[in-house]
């Protein structure tokens, strides 16, 4: 037991509120006002878990965080670490004859996808990260988990199971929010982070893998841990660059201003970093970074950052390459945006799209052949719905638009959804199937695909049982095929996959465009 003070507290049954007097006995609550704790008497409750009992499951929605007082708990991902792979199609004579694609789960070792993250660990809502190859870790007394769920109402990122008999405090957001402002509590959390997660966070970034342990130990004590509230600007485009940041918690929106608007370049989540372009270029910030929710960052000062890149030329080279790639991708996106007629596109959100499935309603007989073909091509799970926005006589069907502001990426509890440089969405192997991305997508373009998988049977430890797991999928444009199934199967020449700006340019009267089908 690390809390001697626990001996002075009389344990109450499971679910009973923790008395303010008892909470104040604990060092982490020392700075919290007794009046606040009394007013919020029911906001913190006792939780007792027997060995093997599940505390929370990945993908579940919740609103509380857990603070471990006694015992140890394991934190793990029960979902298979794999992505949905469509197969079939053009292989062999008969393969070429059919567009029937079967979907199955494939891990990184088996099916390496272009621009897939090369992370070695998976970010979760706990003071530790999980190894990609063996996603299990241990949590002990004094550790907090479920912060993101509690503060931002994101789904649980992992399954937590009591490894020994455990006693925990389960708290609501108002208590956690006050605790976050308490110096002893912050100090303890920060210390835990520096001790357990900073190392893996830094090493998760491929270009930092060359850092020596000595240097990481040096950084461990030098870095600053910062907190930002939702909407707070972390740094502004054009400001002098003075720090490098690593995201510890929450989501950061990276955006760039352009005449008449703002282009979201990326949403960064736990384990991602930013600020290197300004530091390496010796100039100002090239983008504005804003906290989307409760964000916690690790700040490495310009001095330490420059010392690091000087001491480790490999790191410098990697950072420079990464910065160049990011800048080139950003420039390309901005170039595309600047050349677009905005008004009417923006009014219907079409500006956001990179690729659209449009149905010419003057030709479409509403036969649903496109939907049937999509379902038949993807194990009976259609990835498009013949409903959506209308633009002139075109229906922009519900199918992934590869948006420039990909709201689907906000809130993923394990940071599994992101996009490639081409802006196309990629769902990483460690998707836990919580469905938040599907819920967030304003166009309903993300679906959950069910699979039967073998998972640990928590009722019978050491045994496995078949369970239905879900993985998020988006329209993959039937990349295995020469042409998307929905377009191929439309008998009325009404369905087209198009690059929207070009496709609508004629309608908008901006320039005579030739219909470019994808």
């Amino acid at each position, binding site marked *: 037991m690390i809390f001697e003070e626990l001996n002075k507290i009389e344990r109450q049954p499971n679910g009973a509120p923790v008395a303010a007097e008892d909470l104040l006995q604990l060092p982490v609550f020392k700075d919290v006002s007794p009046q606040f704790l009394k007013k919020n008497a029911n906001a913190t409750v006792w939780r007792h878990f027997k060995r093997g009992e599940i505390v929370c499951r990945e993908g579940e929605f919740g609103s509380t965080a857990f603070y471990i007082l006694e015992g140890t708990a394991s934190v793990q991902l029960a979902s298979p670490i794999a992505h949905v792979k469509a197969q079939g199609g053009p292989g062999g004579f008969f393969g*070429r*004859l*059919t*567009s*029937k694609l079967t979907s199955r789960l494939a891990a990184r070792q088996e099916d390496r996808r272009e621009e897939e993250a090369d992370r070695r660990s998976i970010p979760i809502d706990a003071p530790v990260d999980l190894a990609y190859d063996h996603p299990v870790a241990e949590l002990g007394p004094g550790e907090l988990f479920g912060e993101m769920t509690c503060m931002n109402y994101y789904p649980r990122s992992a399954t937590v199971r009591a490894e020994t008999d455990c006693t925990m405090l389960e708290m609501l957001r108002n208590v956690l929010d006050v605790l976050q402002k308490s110096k002893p509590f912050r100090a303890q959390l920060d210390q835990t982070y520096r001790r357990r997660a900073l190392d893996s966070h830094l090493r998760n970034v491929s270009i930092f893998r060359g850092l020596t342990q000595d240097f990481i130990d040096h950084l461990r004590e030098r870095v600053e841990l910062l907190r930002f509230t939702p909407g707070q600007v972390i740094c502004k485009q054009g400001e002098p660059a003075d720090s490098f940041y690593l995201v510890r918690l929450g989501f950061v929106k990276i955006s760039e201003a352009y005449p008449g608007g703002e282009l979201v370049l990326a949403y960064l989540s736990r384990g991602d970093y930013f600020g290197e372009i300004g530091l390496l270029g010796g100039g100002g910030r090239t983008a504005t970074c804003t906290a989307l929710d409760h964000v916690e960052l690790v700040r490495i000062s310009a001095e330490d950052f420059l010392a690091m890149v000087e001491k480790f030329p490999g790191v410098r080279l990697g950072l420079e390459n990464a910065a160049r790639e990011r800048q080139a991708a950003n420039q390309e996106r901005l170039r595309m945006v600047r050349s677009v007629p905005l008004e009417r596109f923006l009014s219907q959100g079409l500006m956001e799209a990179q690729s659209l499935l449009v149905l010419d*309603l*003057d*030709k*479409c*007989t*509403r*036969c649903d*052949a496109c939907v*049937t*073909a999509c379902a*038949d*091509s993807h194990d009976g799970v259609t990835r498009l*719905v*013949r*409903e959506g926005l*209308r633009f002139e*006589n075109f229906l922009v069907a519900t199918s992934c638009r590869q948006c420039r502001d990909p709201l689907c990426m906000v809130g993923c509890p394990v940071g599994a959804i992101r996009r490639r440089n081409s802006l196309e969405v990629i769902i990483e192997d460690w998707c836990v199937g919580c469905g938040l991305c599907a819920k967030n997508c304003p166009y309903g373009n993300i679906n959950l695909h069910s699979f039967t998988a073998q998972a640990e049977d928590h009722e019978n430890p050491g045994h496995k049982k078949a369970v239905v797991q879900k993985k998020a999928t988006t329209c993959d444009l039937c990349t295995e*095929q020469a*042409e998307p*199934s929905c377009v*191929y*199967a*439309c*008998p*009325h*020449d*009404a369905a087209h996959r198009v690059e929207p700006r070009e496709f609508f340019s004629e309608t908008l009267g901006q320039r005579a465009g030739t219909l470019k089908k994808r």
Partner: protein
Amino acid sequence: MRIDNTHKNWAIASLLIFGLSMLLYGIYRVPPSGVPMGGTALGLVFGSLGFAFMIFAALLGARKKVPVWRVGRAQTWMRGHLWLGLLCLPLIVFHSGFRYGHGLSAVLMTLLIVVVASGVFGAALQHYMPRVMTREVTMETIYEEIEHVRAQLREEAEELFTQATAETAKAAAAAGAGSTGTSVAVREDEAAPMRNFFEQELRPFLDNPGARGHALADQAQSRSAFVQLRTLVPPALHTTLDDLESICEEERQLTMQSRLHLWLHGWLLLHIPLSLALILLGAVHAVMALRF
């Protein structure tokens, strides 16, 4: 399918086949009237070609059943279906030597005429109706969802009505208790025209929107009914009336969508079974003619 410029090649090819067939028929037709044309070499060529085109046209149905098969784009099949299907008629007429025949031949000829006519009718509908539907039904939904949307509209209307009447009841109670009430409160008698309208007109319309002769089924009549109603009830209820009017409009659009959908696809109920019968009996006719 819209018949537009993209059909040019098919139209030209079909016209060429038709012209060539007519030329051959004119040149090689056996003059004696007693000899059936179908039994001659040219007649057999016309018959075989016509039957082959029928089979190709019928295969569109099979093609649609397996959308995952990459055996040509569905629109190519559809174009082939339209033009080759249409060509069947002159080819079979040439095959028959412009005779209607009797027995099975007469049945076949009748079936062919009906199938081609229904196909032309269907093609014309599918050429025009999508534009009508796009223009007229701006609140279009997925066809299978229509009943669900209707149920939601009914529920929404009931809710609006209940809220409005609950507020008037509250206002009446307050008035009974001697309270002056709020400025927007509506007395029960003031809301009576709306209650009567809802119970006698609106609810029956939403319950059975397809019923003929209903005033609310007609946009103009509906508009005038709501205009009149607004003059009878206090302004506090006008927002509710606006919402109810929107519900009626959406309901009319759903009815219109159902009707247009029926037009778009209803003719297939005749076209498909008769086509299948034609293929089947055509095969019987071919076997019998060749064997006997």
